[in-house]
């Protein structure tokens, strides 16, 4: 079963949830489908979604809510069936 690396497309601040009070978009063990929101990257006050490009299960998450991220940095792994 291949592990798919999900990389940050942009430099900025990564958010795992839509607002401080909201539940995270995904946690380790979450089942995701193509197009599902995995998190947000904020660049200069503009927000971009990071979407799943495969169906599968999130196996590891490497970033916390509010972490600074670089383009190409690994955000999480998805195990595709």
């Amino acid at each position, binding site marked *: 079963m291949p592990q798919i690396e999900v990389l940050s497309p942009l*430099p*900025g601040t990564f958010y795992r949830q839509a607002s401080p009070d909201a539940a995270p978009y995904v946690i380790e063990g979450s089942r995701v489908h193509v197009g599902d929101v995995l998190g947000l990257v*904020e660049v*200069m006050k503009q927000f971009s979604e990071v979407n799943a490009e495969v169906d599968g299960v999130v196996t590891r998450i490497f970033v916390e809510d509010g972490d600074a991220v670089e383009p190409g940095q690994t955000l999480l792994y998805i195990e595709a069936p």
Partner: protein
Amino acid sequence: MKPDFDTLLVANRGEIAVRIIRAARELGLRTIAVFSDADAGSLPTQLADEAIHIGATPASKSYLNVDAILSAAKAAGAGAIHPGYGFLAENAAFADAVAAAGLVFVGPSAHAIRTMGDKAAARAAAQRAGVPTVPGSTGVVDSLDDAVRIAADIGYPIMIKASAGGGGRGIRVANDDAELRREMTTAQAEAKAAFGNGAVYLERFIRHARHIEVQILGDGKNVLHFFERECSLQRRRQKIWEEAPSAAIDTRTREAMCSSAVALARAVSYSGAGTLEYLYDDESQEFFFIEMNTRIQVEHPVTEMVTGVDLVKEMLRIAMGEQLRLTQGDICLRGTAIEVRINAENPAKNFAPCPGKVSSLRIPGGPGVRFDSMLFPGYVVPPFYDSLLGKLIVHDENRTAALDRLNRALRELDVEGLTTTKGLHQKLVLDPEVRLGKFDTSFLERWLASKPL
């Protein structure tokens, strides 16, 4: 008692931190910059007498971290804190915390921030001071007959706004009684469906609104105005081009608007720099107060250029306990100034942010040109904060000459390594309608939709 301080902490970053450090140094103050992880080595940290690290990159952990800022002030022996704009500038709890720590907050009282920061309270204060506000219903309107009666007072065209709406959502417009009766029913049903609350209220609809604002300074007793700025060129409610004076209003309107601003600021015993925002109706030539900003604003330089007054220095003098040194008669309007915002955004790609490294930089100069910025060659613009890189300000004897000077200065400006909004301004400065000053707050978005960049 006269507050006495010789050291100022600047609780901000970017171009405004640079601007405040410059003003403070000219007044002989020692300056303290604060910085996050991402801003180590930034221009304000280079220019200040001392720079103190206050936390991690996210603003919530640094520039919004009240405890870290107050600790830095204590450690550096600062007697006053200037908040700049954004971040903690209009946070009444921060103003209170600064005062409680025995320091001077360079700005109005926490009470003034609270009163004028609350839209309903500010509107009520304006009405008490005799300042016109956008005519509307007092609260929610339920029945069609009530709506028609109220509309007769307000005048058509009229807006039906959902109480639970906001940001332009849940608004319908009616031009006469028959339309109002029809649209009211639809608006109530839509509001119920969209927001789960069918309550609506009525407000005059201004078809061609300009955003015009009046700069004031107060010392707690006296208030002076520094004329107006025209800020109608906006995208998504963000100003990108500001000028002083407004080309749209005559001397009599200018005098009435500025006097009303002084009356309102005086009514709340305002201290420090403030801006009163108005909507100006191009058709009826009426103006209406909408809100007050209790801080120094991004676009303050255009006012400095046409009046010759250094607003940031005056703010610091007021914070030191000095009375206003000028009288209204000392403040004259000379020529026209225009400011354009150079942002790290790509106008051709829907203004996508473009952080990155400034590989080389050429700053425009010559007569009547000013560039307020934190850029230097080799600076890496971080992606974590806003996209403003600098403000290009020009001044000349009249608006046409100022436009030509702006066009010339934009050609000289060269920021290599990043995509900026310079190209957008080069097109706007040559646009026939912009040159005639014929625009309202919806002009730029229409213009962008019709002109591929």
